[in-house]
Every structure is written in structure tokens, then in C-alpha cells.
């Protein structure tokens, strides 16, 4: 059911032009300040949590106290079961990202080469998030069997769509002069693609990659939540159902931390990949 989650929510949604500029415009000092503020907010959140539990603003069944969650966190991080789940989820995300990303890139390039086909498919692709992919689970059982590949395939689809749309938008937004330059230099098709077109569309493609990672994560965890028998998403569901609220919170926190860390890493990677291209 989750797969639906895949909506393209991104800083740079495929259809908003100007992908990178917003962020880059700020001076480095605000980046540091932002990081400090974010950290401060997280600390404040923890404080609020602790206070709320201590003053009994909510019942421990609703939100267990921080003092119980922290030791459980330490214990769980040391357990093999956790790393087994995390490894499985990580593997699914990685495969879905690589597979979905590559497929999305190819589809995006294909749409660029054949804009009519692209325009025929576009309305369906942009509305694809309205489909709860998880409901295709029974079909997946028949096709791929009962294993993690059903999670991977559905997560790949979720990762592939924003990638395809972003790649396409990026390529069709290329300044025509770049292609003219490539032609005047006598670039062969491979050179035109790899030396000119793809690097020029890179801000969009990198934004698409970020989305692909996020959707691979969302898709994999959400699919696990509903259908799998291992993985972080499954573990949360399992602990939820068996009323182990404290451990469940630990896993929810781990997934949250993982997503936040991933977002942070992605923005660092994006900066590195788009080095030098300040707000043009």
C-alpha cells in the first residue's frame, strides 16, 4: 500500500523548472547555521519528549518515555537481528535505486529522443503516484515468488518514475546552443550524450537521483511494512502488532534517522556533483 507513498515530493519536483538554484544561492555560513539550528531543534524535540513523559502529558502506551527508549536503542543497535533487517532493507533500497534509476534515465532519454511518445506517456506517469502499488502484491507473488524481489521491483518502479520525468524535463530544457555546439564540433551521438546533453541536464538528473533514492527508501520500507517478512519496515509492523511499543519506537526512530541522514548525504553529494554551477 505504501508504494503509493511515492509521490514526487521534492524540493525540485520534476515540473518545477529551476532545479538547483534555490539552495545554492545561500552563503555557506547559513548552511552551518542551519545545521546548528536543526541539531538544536532535534535536541528540543527530545527534551519535549522527555518532559511530556515525565509530567505524564501522555500515557506510556502512546509514547514511551525517552529514558526507556534510549537503552533499548543501544541494545538493539548491538543485536544481530537489527543488522540483519537493516542489511536487507539497505540491499533492497540499493537495488531499487540502481535499477529504477538506470531504467528511469533510459526512459527519460528515450522520451527526449521521441518527444511524441513522451507526451503520450506523460499524463500517465505524472499520475502514477495515485496508484497504491502495494496492491499488486498478489500479482508479484505469482510472477517473482514470495521473496524480497517483489519489494525491490515495486520500489524500483517508484524510484524510476521521478528519475524518468526529471531526466526528460532536464534534457528537453537544454539550451539549444549546446546541441548546436556539439554538432558544429562533429560530436558523435555518444559524445553528444555523455559530453554535452547529460552533463547539461545534470541539475535535473541529480534532482531526479535524489528523488529516486528517497522513493526507493519510501517504497522499500512501505512495502516491507505491508508484505514482507524481514526488514526494517516489517520489524516496525511486527513490534507494533506484538505491542512492544518501546522497541517499535526504536525502529521508527532508526528509520527516521536513516531518512534524515540520507537526505543530508544526498544534498552533500548533489553539491559535489554540481560543483561550480552556482545559480546560473
Amino acid at each position, binding site marked *: 500500500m505504501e508504494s503509493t*507513498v511515492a509521490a514526487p515530493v521534492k524540493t525540485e519536483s520534476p515540473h518545477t523548472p529551476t532545479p538547483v538554484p534555490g539552495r545554492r*544561492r545561500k552563503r555557506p555560513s547559513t548552511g552551518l547555521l542551519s*545545521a546548528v539550528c536543526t541539531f538544536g531543534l532535534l535536541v528540543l524535540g527530545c527534551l519535549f519528549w522527555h518532559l511530556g513523559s515525565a509530567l505524564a502529558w501522555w*500515557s506510556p502506551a502512546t509514547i514511551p518515555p525517552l529514558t526507556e527508549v534510549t537503552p533499548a536503542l543501544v541494545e538493539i543497535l548491538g543485536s544481530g537481528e537489527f543488522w540483519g533487517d537493516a542489511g536487507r532493507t539497505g540491499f533492497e533500497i540499493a537495488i531499487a535505486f540502481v535499477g529504477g534509476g538506470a531504467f528511469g534515465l533510459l526512459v527519460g532519454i528515450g522520451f527526449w529522443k521521441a518527444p511524441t511518445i513522451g507526451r503520450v506517456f506523460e499524463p500517465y506517469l505524472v499520475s502514477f503516484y*495515485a496508484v497504491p502499488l502495494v496492491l499488486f502484491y498478489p500479482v508479484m507473488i505469482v510472477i517473482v515468488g514470495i521473496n524480497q524481489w517483489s519489494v525491490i521491483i515495486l520500489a524500483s518502479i517508484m524510484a524510476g518514475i521521478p528519475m524518468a520525468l526529471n531526466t526528460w524535463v532536464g534534457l528537453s530544457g537544454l539550451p539549444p546552443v549546446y546541441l548546436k555546439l556539439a554538432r558544429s564540433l562533429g560530436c558523435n551521438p555518444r559524445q553528444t550524450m555523455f559530453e554535452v546533453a547529460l552533463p547539461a541536464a545534470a541539475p535535473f538528473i541529480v534532482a531526479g537521483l535524489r528523488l529516486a533514492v528517497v522513493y526507493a527508501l519510501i517504497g522499500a520500507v512501505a512495502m516491507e511494512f505491508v508484505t514482507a517478512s524481514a526488514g526494517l519496515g516489517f520489524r516496525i509492523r511486527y513490534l507494533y502488532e506484538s505491542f512492544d511499543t518501546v522497541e517499535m519506537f526504536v525502529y521508527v526512530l532508526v528509520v527516521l534517522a536513516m531518512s534524515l541522514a540520507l*537526505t543530508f548525504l544526498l544534498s552533500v553529494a548533489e553539491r559535489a556533483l554540481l560543483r561550480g554551477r552556482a545559480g546560473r
Partner: protein
Amino acid sequence: MTAASVHTRRRPRINVPAGSFLLLLLVILLWWLAAQLSFVIPTPADTVGALVSNFGDADYRRHVEATAAAVLVAFLVAGLLGVLLGLALGLSKWVRIIFEPLVVGFNGVPKIVLYPVLLPIFSLSGSKIVMGVLFGLFPILINVAAGIRDMPAVYWKLARSVNANWWQVLTQIIVPAIRRPLLTGVRLAASLSAVGVVLAEFFSTRFGLGRVVLRAYGNGNYPDMMATILLLISVAFIVSLLLWRWERKTR
């Protein structure tokens, strides 16, 4: 990008709406073929039949209404909240410095894992709406904030030069200037809040299509299941398509 789009999007020889329609027919044909090949997939005809008979059932209509109402509330709340928070994030440098990383980070969180936390806080009927809001909120919020940030500085000068009050600035300058990203956000929020609500309904609810789907699913009654999914998909799809067409026009 204007020049580029003119360049690559020359008038296509094939009529695009006709092409999309053909594609739809092709999908239905493939669906029918798949139904012949695999017993899991009901034929399109069976599915539509199930849908029609479902609508004859007052109980089913009640489920539809419950979901529709929850989606509508979730969408409206997500829209209102998203626009306001997006404005705050886009307009104030400090709000941005303090909150932006967390907002972007939370956008990447698989929100479904929060359901176990939401249920005890918002109870059954509330948590599905909150889930819908969580799903729909971020696209609007982020698009509005980005839209404002990308607004040409000259608009602010213009606003000051004509002595516009804050309401006029909002309605006459900001909203028209960011209408495109705003519409993108609204479109995404519309489908996403529906997804969020239905997902939450999969867990438990008194009335709602999520429950209907899950019941048919649990019993292996695939025509019934597909019928409801088809209903959900086509409504979300049509709404999304209409919003998308509108969005394109505002280029």
C-alpha cells in the same frame, strides 16, 4: 527553458490526446491478455461488472463516502497548512535557516511507519486524516517555498512601489507569481492525500475503501478488489490529469 521547449517540442505529427487514448486502449488490451495468462488478474469486464454491482450496494456507497470525506478534509488541511508553512518558509530567511533541513528531511521519511505513533494520538478517524495530511503537505509546502524563493526580486520592488498592503501582496503578486509550482504541489497533494488516507484505512477503520480493498484482498476476491482499486485509481487519475492540464496552461 522556453527556448528549449520550443526547440524540442515541435508540433508533434501525432495528435497527443489521441495517442494517450490509444495507449489507454493498449493498457486495457494488455490487462485483458494478462488476465488470460494469470488467474490472479480478473478481466477488465469482470472488474467493471464488480464495480457496477458494488455501487448498487448502499454499504459500499457508505464506504466510498467515508473515504471521499476523509480525503477531502485531508487535502484541504494539507493545502491550507502547506501554503501557510510554505509562505513562512519562503518569505522569512530565519524560518528557512531554522526549519528547512528538517522539512526537507521529513519529506524523505516513509510516512507510513508513523502510523503506529499516530493512531493512539489521533484515534482511528483522526489518524487516517492526519496520514492523508502528512502525505499531501510536503509537496505543497516545498513547492510554495521554492516558488517564492525563485520569484524575481523586481516583484518585491513593484509591490513596494505601489504601496500594496500585505493582503494585496499575497493575492496580487505572490500567488500569481508562484501559481505554477503551487499547482504542481496541489496536484501532487490531491493524489497523495488520497493515497495516505487509503493506506491508513488498510490498518483499520469503520468505513472506507481501504477496508473494502483489504477485505476482498484477504478473501482472494480479485474482481472485487480490482474494482475498488480501479475506482480509486481512476478518480485520482482523472483529478490529477485535470490539474495537470490546468498546470500546463499556466506556463
